[in-house]
């Protein structure tokens, strides 16, 4: 697949982790992403905002090749280059499973597996064939600590994940995503099913997590994007309208369309 040259919106002092270049994507005949380009900076939080149906979740799900699971979906041009590999994630020669081992995901609705808390977190390690009990124990503990859940569950690791509260379940899903030491974690509206207190704790956690990983988050909540992200991209009808440093994008958007959206005149 021919990849267009690099996107020029890099920010000084920031290192590129991934680069979306003129990406086209189709659901069957529906053109869902139209020549979308944007950079993803290492150890930063980048958020995708825009009204429903603008393609922000579609773009997110390209990063871990989730679209490959369903027939009829088609990457139709352009690509996503991952650094330092300098490899197009959408190249047919790239194994989606390898991609998902390095780029993990947290979903909109907490979806713990019907397993114990411990096994939920250990899942991504077991999938990789890890059998050593001590190593598993260590990795599960550090993932749960990373997701700020360890103190609440350390004495009931054998209980079902579904017994936790909604916010705890979502942190369990974050721990599950963290356990395999991914380079990027994708968040697909991770707080839309949670109450305000649980939302605040997840937001706090995301800000802490960028020490360890690069974060890409889809949110329909503009305040959330403003609170937690370093960079924000505004999408509309499958196109990238504007990408910029969050503060600048919210205070002084370059495009009229962005201004209309963030001031609530539209969407």
């Amino acid at each position, binding site marked *: 697949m021919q990849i267009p040259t690099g996107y020029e919106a890099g920010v000084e002092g920031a290192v590129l982790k991934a680069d979306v270049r003129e990406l086209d994507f189709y659901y069957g005949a529906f053109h869902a992403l139209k020549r979308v380009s944007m950079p993803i900076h290492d150890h930063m939080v980048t958020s995708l905002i825009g009204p429903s149906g603008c393609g922000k979740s579609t773009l997110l799900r390209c990063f*871990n090749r989730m679209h490959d699971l369903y027939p009829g979906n088609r990457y139709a041009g352009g690509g996503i280059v991952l650094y330092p590999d300098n490899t197009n994630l959408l190249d047919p020669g790239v194994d989606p499973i390898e991609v998902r081992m390095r780029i993990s995901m947290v979903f909109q609705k907490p*979806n713990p*597996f019907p397993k114990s808390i411990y096994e939920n977190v250990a899942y991504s390690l077991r999938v990789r064939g890890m059998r050593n009990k001590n190593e598993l124990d260590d990795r599960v503990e550090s993932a749960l600590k990373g997701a700020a859940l360890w103190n609440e569950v350390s004495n009931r690791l054998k209980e079902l994940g579904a017994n936790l509260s909604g916010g705890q379940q979502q942190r369990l899903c974050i721990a599950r995503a963290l356990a395999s030491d991914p380079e990027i974690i994708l968040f697909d509206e991770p707080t839309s099913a949670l109450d305000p207190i649980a939302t605040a704790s997840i937001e706090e956690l995301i800000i802490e997590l960028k020490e360890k990983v690069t974060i890409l988050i889809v949110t329909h909540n503009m305040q959330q994007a403003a609170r937690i992200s370093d960079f924000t991209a505004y999408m509309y009808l499958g196109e990238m309208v504007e990408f910029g440093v969050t503060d600048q994008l919210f205070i002084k958007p370059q495009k009229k369309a962005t201004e209309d959206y963030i001031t609530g005149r539209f969407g």
Partner: protein
Amino acid sequence: MTASASLPTRLLPSASLGNGVSDRLRKKASRHVKERIIESLLFSAAAFSVFVTVAIVYVLVKESWVFFQVVPLSDFLFDTQWTPLFDDAHYGIMVLLSGTLTSSGVALLVAIPLGTIIAIYLSEFAGFKVREIAKPFLELLGGVPTIVYGYFALTFLTPILQKIYPDLPGFNLLSAGLVMGIMIIPYVASLSEDAMRAVPMALREGSYAMGATRLQTALWVVTPAATSGIASAYILGISRAVGETMILAVAAGMQPNLTFNPTEPGATITSYIVQVALGDLPHGSIGYQTIFAAGLTLLLMTLAFNLLGYWLRKRFREVY
């Protein structure tokens, strides 16, 4: 002024609230009657099924009672011979039970693994087209009359098995059990598949997003999430195996035989009942009464399995 005189007007009789009920708002007698008729029709339909069940249990228990007046329960449970038609009559249900358990065991060894594998394939691996073609065929397999399966066992499978194992008698529990297993596959596969397909896509996506393969997702996430449905599928399969009659009557020989060796001929509870019910034993004789005791045993067994299934469903029900 007395206390009663100070009562507020709203406690006075309702007549003072208005001029009675107006025609517009009055209860409609015709509607009331129609509702009642419909309700009683629905009730009697539901009551009918309950009545039939109770009646069956009543007949079985009543006739078995006659049997147990003559034969002590301990003989029935612990005697190792079943010869109710001989002069030296013995009534050890164990003999028939061994045939039922052996043939069911063989059948389940076929049906549970194959049915589960088919369910996993259809639910997690097969494409839309394959599933749309394969499922009707699978369900057709469940629609074949069991007498056809019986002849299939007797005239097709047994000769093949005899080539591999020359000492195998013409009537045997093995061939009947294997064919019975094939008959049960559709029940196990179809219900298990339904249970797996009911597992929400979000769980599968969660597993794939962690880098799991299809097989890992199917075995480690979808199957555990569908446990309660799969367990009921197995229980239904067991009940079918225990209650199956025709295949065993045709292919397993109907000779009461206390054995757990599937390569021998044997009679099961069901095939014995067919034999006696179609025979020329006079009604009311003790030989004839045996079929009610045998039938009651069968009913208690399937009841036990149904209760087990009910318990499993409650125990493992997933809240997605």
